[in-house]
């Protein structure tokens, strides 16, 4: 069964080609057959591969399928080859499965849009690129997928291209991630130059043998790759594009900007974990980036009024958790959180899409309310996802995955108290903004009336994801709660386990208790401000300092403003100053000199006979002189 691996990206690519060329002329009913069907087939193949992998694991717990040699020049020989181990298997499974659900949802969500087939074409291309990224056995193929998902992100954010705002958001996304991509390219070049290969397993092996621990080369490589991951995963300082990317259709936000593309950075770092193990400084940078981001984004999410922007900042924050886990060496915890996050964040976006559609494209949560009674299914699924996001103890997947990360931040040899504390504060913030969102949208009095109810195609994925958000965590539980380690054990086939430092101060139980406390605190305050006494919220927000803070966090800690001043203005200034392109003067100068000569010579052709005679005389004189004296 494992040799069916190549079908996983192949189905969506084929569908993309069909839809891109024939989509316009296809009957509308046929489009989702291709669009959804291809991803469905990929999901089925992924399931088959998983079954095969689990039942009869291949030797060494990894499987490589080489399709053909891509480039062969001077010793540089990357191949189109797919590499399957537990890491890529889990991620591919999640991507195809969640992707399939989202495609199913968008079959109904996007049905009235005139770019129906275009949408599915782009989404399929995205899924194909993402699978290529995950399955690529060398960094070049990974980079191909990387660029592919970036392209699809651009295309899909600017899907409704007629509105220039969307185009701007798409460009912003592309350019900001480009900054990260540049760093990543440099990292790839560095790796290739120093280690001579881009094949990932070979690379890891050579890095282990050739680079001593803590030397500058792995640190440099690690930091550069981190730069790429930061761009793609919207972490500090390159997170500014994600909130604006909400201009795209909601299924896009669900798939790309919640569940899959933004986790590409996580995957990259997990894949090249050997480099980070060799470079503690780089790994610490990863952790710090994650911790800082999760807090910053948490504050920003508190102040947003657009339902999708809240979720966007929430995504940034949760990926910060994943980065934090990677930074302390808890590789499998990061992937675990990725999986649960994919479930509940996709569901949150899909639910938001349901709400937006039903309220006739209303995005502002302060204009929503009281939907609990009107749309029960939406409410319960959204609630399930929200609780999972915040980490409702014991019964949600998010609780287990987040708790694991927080514990690992304390216990790992590369963890620290500060990181743990940051993570716990993050839990409080997460709970606060999540329940704020839920209370504002679903409770209270209804401010906008429901105009449309979602159909089966939109609700079924929500229900499925809702169930997964609840039970998805039961594959990995702490010792005192069942001691299930199946997920972790599976991951440890590919990733090294976290190295635990000596026990200090607090046990896992204690950590989980404090996490629960943070969760409840956030829940309480959200309830207080947004259900019970709205006046309290008003009174807190009235003083000027509060208003200033609100504005500050609303604009994402002023990052857009900062970048505008730091980067955009100087470049525009340079462009304006150089408008006449002084380098051009060199070339224009050549033309100018020629013109001068022309004018000079032209004056000798004046038709005057005496002038010509003088010319003859002068010429003959010169001639004679040359003959005589030279």
């Amino acid at each position: 069964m494992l040799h069916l691996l190549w079908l996983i990206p192949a189905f969506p690519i084929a569908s993309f080609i069909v839809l891109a060329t024939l989509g316009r002329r296809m009957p509308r009913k046929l489009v989702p057959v291709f669009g959804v069907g291809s991803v469905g087939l990929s999901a089925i193949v992924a399931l088959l591969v998983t079954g095969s992998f689990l039942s009869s694991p291949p030797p060494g717990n990894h499987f490589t399928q080489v399709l053909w040699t891509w480039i062969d020049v001077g010793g540089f020989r990357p191949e189109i080859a797919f590499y399957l181990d537990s890491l890529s298997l889990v991620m591919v499974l999640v991507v195809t499965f969640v992707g399939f659900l989202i495609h199913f949802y968008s079959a109904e969500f996007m049905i009235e849009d005139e770019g129906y087939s275009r949408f599915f074409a782009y989404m399929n291309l995205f899924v194909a690129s993402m699978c290529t990224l995950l399955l690529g056995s060398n960094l070049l193929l990974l980079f191909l997928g990387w660029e592919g998902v970036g392209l699809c992100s651009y295309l899909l954010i600017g899907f409704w291209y007629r509105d220039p705002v969307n185009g701007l958001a798409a460009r912003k996304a592309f350019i900001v991630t480009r900054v990260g991509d540049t760093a990543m390219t440099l990292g790839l070049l560095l790796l290739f130059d120093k280690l001579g290969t881009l094949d990932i397993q070979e690379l890891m092996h050579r890095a282990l043998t050739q680079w001593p621990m803590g030397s500058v080369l792995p640190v440099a490589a690690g930091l550069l790759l981190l730069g790429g991951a930061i761009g793609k995963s919207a972490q500090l300082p390159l997170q500014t594009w994600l909130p604006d990317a909400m201009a795209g259709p909601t299924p896009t936000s669900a798939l790309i900007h919640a569940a899959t593309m933004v986790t590409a950075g996580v995957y990259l770092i997990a894949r090249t974990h050997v480099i980070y193990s060799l470079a503690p400084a780089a790994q610490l940078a990863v952790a710090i980036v994650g911790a800082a981001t999760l807090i910053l984004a948490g504050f920003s999410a508190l102040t947003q009024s657009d339902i999708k922007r809240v979720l966007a900042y929430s995504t940034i924050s949760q990926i910060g958790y994943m980065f934090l886990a990677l930074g302390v060496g808890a590789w499998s915890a990061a992937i675990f959180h990725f999986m649960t996050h994919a479930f509940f964040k996709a569901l949150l976006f899909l639910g938001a899409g349901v709400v937006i559609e039903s309220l006739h494209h209303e995005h502002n949560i302060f204009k929503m309310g009281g939907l609990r009674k009107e749309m029960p299914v939406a409410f319960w699924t959204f609630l399930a996802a929200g609780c999972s996001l915040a980490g409702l103890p014991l019964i949600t997947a998010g609780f287990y995955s987040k708790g694991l990360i927080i514990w690992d931040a304390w216990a790992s040899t590369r963890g620290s108290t500060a990181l743990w504390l940051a993570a716990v504060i993050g839990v409080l913030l997460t709970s606060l903004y999540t329940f704020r969102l839920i209370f504002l949208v679903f409770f209270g009095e209804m401010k906008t009336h429901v105009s449309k109810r979602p159909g089966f195609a939109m609700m079924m994925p929500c229900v499925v994801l809702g169930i997964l958000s609840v039970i998805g965590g039961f594959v990995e539980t702490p010792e005192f709660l069942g001691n299930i380690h199946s997920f972790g054990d599976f991951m440890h086939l590919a990733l090294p386990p976290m190295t635990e430092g000596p026990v200090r101060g607090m046990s896992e139980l204690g950590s989980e208790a404090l996490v629960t406390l943070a969760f409840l605190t956030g829940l309480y305050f959200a309830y207080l401000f947004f259900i019970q006494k709205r006046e309290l919220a008003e009174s807190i927000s009235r003083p000027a300092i509060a208003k200033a803070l609100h504005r500050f966090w609303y604009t994402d800690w002023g990052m857009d403003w900062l970048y505008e001043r730091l980067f955009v203005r100087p470049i525009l200034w340079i462009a304006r100053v150089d408008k006449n392109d002084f380098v051009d003067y060199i070339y224009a100068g050549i033309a100018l000199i020629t013109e001068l000569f022309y004018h000079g010579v032209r004056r000798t052709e004046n038709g005057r006979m005496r002038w010509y005679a003088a010319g003859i005389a002068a010429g003959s004189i010169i001639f004679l002189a040359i003959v005589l004296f030279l």
Partner: protein
Amino acid sequence: MFALGLTGLLVRRNVIFMLMSLEIMLNAAGLAFIVAGARWGQADGQIVFLFILSMAAAEVCVGLALVLQIYRRFKSLDADAVSEMRG
């Protein structure tokens, strides 16, 4: 004399005078030939002068006819007025 003829050619604007200066120049060249022939004691110099002479005659004919045409056409004998081939 050649130099004098050249000077006259360049200075005068009237085409008649220019033709005259040309004659002077031709004459001077012929003089040089004759002297050379006498120096070496050969008849060749005189032969060449004969040819020069006949050529001068032909040139004067055609030149003067052209002068007539120029006069009729441009109503003046100014050499600079016939500079239509400018460019």
